[in-house]
Structure formats: C-alpha cells, structure tokens
C-alpha cells in the first residue's frame, strides 16, 4: 500500500505563492472579502508562512508553503466526535464535509493550524461560477475543510492504472501545487517505495519535518540548508 508524502525544497522555493493560487482554483476554495480576511477568516488550504529572523538591519526572511501535513498520527482525527475527519490506508487525512457538525475541535487540536472553517456560506463572483473544478465538491457554511493532497487526482490516476492493469507509477499522481510550482520545489510521491524520488529526497541531510518532537509524524518533509 503506498503512503503519499510531499517534499518541499525550500532552497529552491522562491516564495512566489503560485502554489496557493493553484490550490485555491483547483479545490474550489471559497473567496472571502478583504474585511473578512482581516478578521482572520481567510481560506487557504496551502498557506504561506513568513518568518522574520534577526534584528534590523540583519533581517532574514524565511518563507515557506504550508499545506496540511497529513500526519501519520493525526491529532485532528483523534478528537473528531463524528468521524468527519479520518486517515485512510494510504495515509491521506480526509474530510467528510457532509458529516461535519462544525464543532471545530479538530481546528483547535491541530498543532499546525491547517484546518479552515466556513464561517459564512461561500459567495462566488459571477466569473468563477463557470470555472469550478467538477472533481471537487463545494462546501457549505459551517463545515471544516483542509488540504486533501488533491485526492480527487488520485482517483483519476488510479482508474487509469487499473484499466492498464499496473501499479501507479512514481510521479504520476501529484497535487496542483506540485504541478504549478514554477521553481519545481514541490515533489510528491510514495514514500514507502524506496525507488521513488520523494523517498530519496527524504533521506537527504537537508530533510526535516515540523515539530518532530510531538510524534504526530507529518508526511510533508522540508529540505533546507538553513533549517
């Protein structure tokens, strides 16, 4: 059984934010008004974190993309009262929008602040209504959503592989952010497969994961000289 993981090479990442944009369009993520966004209701499945290190004038800016880490030991799944968030056999942490009761316990329990909540019913600009991604369901008011590693793409890839009666090839399944990254900094694949690019990169001396001390085992691995 494959275990899907992502590697983000921060030495290549330019912090351009293209991954955020492509994610929003790919997954039909609601667009909120600027006033709402200022109140902390902005919706990103792929977020960009900016850290300023040091004092003026020696400031260094660190910018890195943050999707859901699809923990192998996910704290959000543990606390959900209705099984609306779950981890499947391939290690993907999914979200069942139609079952979520909106208690936001997973949001409070996630150490990485990866979950977003629909505070209002999403309102779509007219021009967006013609370009929804038909593979991704639209969410209603009052439910939690988060990065799914573009699981809808996996379904399509698996169908093709099944028709041709073969395993999914390395690099065949990748989420929208990995596809759109202009610096080619995001890699995606099966980390259980020792031949895969993701596995090889994860063994690099530059590899690290966020908050390894918590033991939640994120499946997003960062590569960086700086750490």
């Amino acid at each position, binding site marked *: 059984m494959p275990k899907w993981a992502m590697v983000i090479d921060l030495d290549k990442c330019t912090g351009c934010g293209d991954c955020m944009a492509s994610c929003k369009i790919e997954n039909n993520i609601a667009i909120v008004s600027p006033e*709402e966004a200022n*109140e*902390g*209701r*902005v919706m990103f499945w792929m977020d960009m*974190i*900016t*850290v300023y290190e040091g004092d003026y004038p020696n400031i260094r800016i660190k910018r890195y993309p*943050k999707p859901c880490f699809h923990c192998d030991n996910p*704290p959000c799944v*543990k*606390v*959900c*009262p*209705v*099984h*609306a968030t779950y981890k499947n056999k391939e290690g993907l942490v999914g979200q069942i929008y139609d*079952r*979520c*009761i*909106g*208690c*936001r*316990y997973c*949001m*409070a*329990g996630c*150490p*990485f*602040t990866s979950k*977003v*909540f*629909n*505070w*209002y*019913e999403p309102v779509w600009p007219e021009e967006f209504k013609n370009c929804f991604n038909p593979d991704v369901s639209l969410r209603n*008011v*009052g*439910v*939690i959503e988060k990065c799914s590693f573009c699981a809808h793409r996996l379904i399509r890839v698996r169908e093709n592989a099944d028709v041709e009666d073969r395993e999914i090839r390395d690099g065949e399944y990748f989420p929208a952010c990995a596809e759109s990254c202009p610096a080619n900094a995001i890699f995606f694949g099966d980390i259980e497969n020792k031949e895969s690019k993701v596995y090889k990169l994860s063994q690099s001396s530059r590899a690290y994961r*966020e*908050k390894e001390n*918590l033991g*939640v085992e994120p499946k997003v691995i960062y590569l960086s000289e700086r750490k």
Partner: protein
Amino acid sequence: MSKDTKQNFGPDEALYRPIYETGKGFYITVSILLAIYFWSLYMYFTQVRSGLGVTGMNQPVTWGFYIVNFVFFIGISHAGTLISAILRLSKAEWRRPITRMAEVITAIVLAIGGLHPILDLGRPDRMLNLVTAGRLQSPLLWDVTSITAYFTASTVYLYLPMIPDIAKLRDRGGKLTWFYTFLAWGWHGTEKQKKVLNKVINILMIMVIPIAISVHTVISYIFSMTLQPGWHSTIFGPYFVAGAIFSGIAALLIVMIAFRRAYHLENYLKEIHFKYLSTLLLIMSFLWFYFTFSEYLTGIFASEPHEMRIILYKFTGPFAIFFWGMVACNFIIPVILLGISRFRTIKGILFASISVVVGMWLERLIIVVPTLANPTMPLPVGIYIPSLVEWALFIGGIAVFILGFVLFSKFFPLISIWEIEEGRKEGIKEVEERIHSYLPNT
C-alpha cells in the same frame, strides 16, 4: 384530611408564602427576563441563518464565548448536587435549608451549560450525527455522555426529595392541585414510603458524587487531550473540578442571599449557614490558588518556548488584565473578605461570592483563548473580540438561569419543608445521641 394538615403548616408558613402570594415585583422580573431571553433567541437565529461568521471567532481563535461559558456554567452546576450530596452524606445537620436550592441550581445551570456546545456548532442541524456517527474515542463524546448522566441523576435527585413537599402542596389544595397530585406520585407519608424514599436518596447521593466529578474532569479533558501548549496538562482534571466546586459554592451563596432577602427567609437561612458555607469557600479559594500556582510554576520553571509564549501572553501580554483580575477575584478579595472576621458579614460574603464567580469566569476565558491565540506555528497572534451575538447569548444564559430559579420558586418551596420538620422532630435527638456515641464515658 386537608383541613387537618392545613393547621399543621403553622411554623413553616413562610416557606409556602412565595408559592401562593405573588407580588408586582415577580411580574416585572419575569417580563424583563423573558424580554432578554427572546432577544438572545433572536440573536441565535441570526447566527443559525448566516453562520458562525456573526461571532467574533476566527482562525486561529476558533473557540470563544460559547466554550468559555460552557465550562463556566457547567462549573456552577457543581454547586448543587455535589455539595448537597456531600453534606447529606456527612450528616451535616445545617444542610437542611440549603440542599434544595443547591439542587435547583444544578438542574437549571446544567441545562443551560449543556446547550452551549450546540450554540457553538457550525451545523446544529447535524447534531444527531453525534448519535448516529459518534466516536466514543473523542473527548466531546465523553462530555455528551457524562453531562447527560449528570443531568439525569441530578434532576432525579432534585425531584425525589421534593415528593413529600409536593404532597403537602397537594393536600393544601387551591392552586394547581391536579399538577401536584400528579407529581406527588401518591405520597402519603407512610412508614414504608419513607423507608423507600430514604433508601433511594441514599443510593442517589452516593451515585451522584462520582458522576459530578467525572463531568468536570471530562470537560477539562477536551483541552488537555490535545497537544496544545497551555492545555496539555495532567493537572487539568482536578484543577477544573476544584474550580467548579469553588464557583458553585459562590453561586449558591449568591442565590441564598438573594432569595433570603426576596422571600424573607431569615429564620431559615441564618448567619451560621453563611458562616459555614463561606468557610468552605475560603478553603476552596486556597485550593484554587494551590492548583493555579502549581500549574504555572511547572510551565515557567521548564520554560518550554511555546508554553512560555502563552504564559507571558497571560502575565504581561494582552491578557494580563484578565489574568491578574482573576487572581484578585479568586484569591485576594475572598481571602481578605472571608479571612478577616470583621468583613465576614452577609454583605462581605455576598461581595466575595460575586468576585469568585467573576474570577472563575475569567479563568475559563484565560484557559480557552490565549492558547488558541498563540498558534505553535510561526503565525501572527490571533485576536478575539466577542460580537454582539455572543454577548447576547451570554446575557441570555444568565437571564434563563434567574428566570428558571424564580419560576421554580413560584411552584415549589425553595427550602425543603419536610426535611426542616424532620430536623425538628428527629434531628435534634439524633445529633444528641450521635455526639454521645462519639465521646467516652457519657
């Protein structure tokens, strides 16, 4: 029969008066409270219609007033049943005029508190998913289970010792006789009935204590089972239970003082009752301080950076005013007012109790918000400003509590009449015998 008993009401007539005599003040109070209640109901409907966006909650502060008030109200509910059960169990004779009020607080506040998580749901229409798809591994389900158990146990525990009093009201006739006949359940005060009732009360009071403790422990587990700094602490279970009993006693004292004045119950609620209960409050204040001190010292001494960030946010940051206000309300003010006998008058006790209730509410706020406002990822610090809807539901919750209590007092005696009678008839003799049995050579 009814005429006969009517004459026997003599000494405790004051306890019946609120039920049969209704003044102007009652109607004014009830209509104001009802107005507040309907206003908060309307506010809740605006929330249901447009979503939780109408609250001040956001990312990362995903929980606000609703969860704070949930913990707070459930805490107050520990006043009742737990204190009443402990006093009954320890055969404290002075409990007699207090237990009923304590139990009523529990039943009403628990109903209000138990509804708060539903106010907090983004999709209240899917609430039944908790039953059809519930995961017992989730602390929220533990809550649902133990609050339901506590509510059931405490309403039964309120109702059963009320049966003899309801029978008295039935025999007295006049108002709502059919209602009292139904609720009295054929009580005639025979020896057998008394024996059964005593037995059931004994079983219930022993059962209710572990249930009550489990309720607040499990509520603390909602926080402590996560990995978040400031929440992930083993002390939370007992800390919450102690705090709950603390705020519960304070609420009970406020209610006792208010209704003593409103219904002229000075003969029943004497200074000694307030002295004893306020001693208990003082002890709980020290216990609370001990827990708070241990909790923060462990964090400060180890100085784990994320933990420290939250502690500094409370000590010197935006929440400093709430934190030090809490310390003043929960420790400094009650210790001064209750520790120095000159201040320990009814007025002083009332002031100390109000300060404790406010302080305990602040404590719940301090537990819920700062941890959420300081995410462990390098994200900006969250800001939480409660909206009008949240304030409305908070005020509405308090209004419903007072309304429930006032209405209860119009239909049932607030002080257990038969237990007072029993105290007069048997209590005095029993206590004398008991003291004899303690002492050697008497």
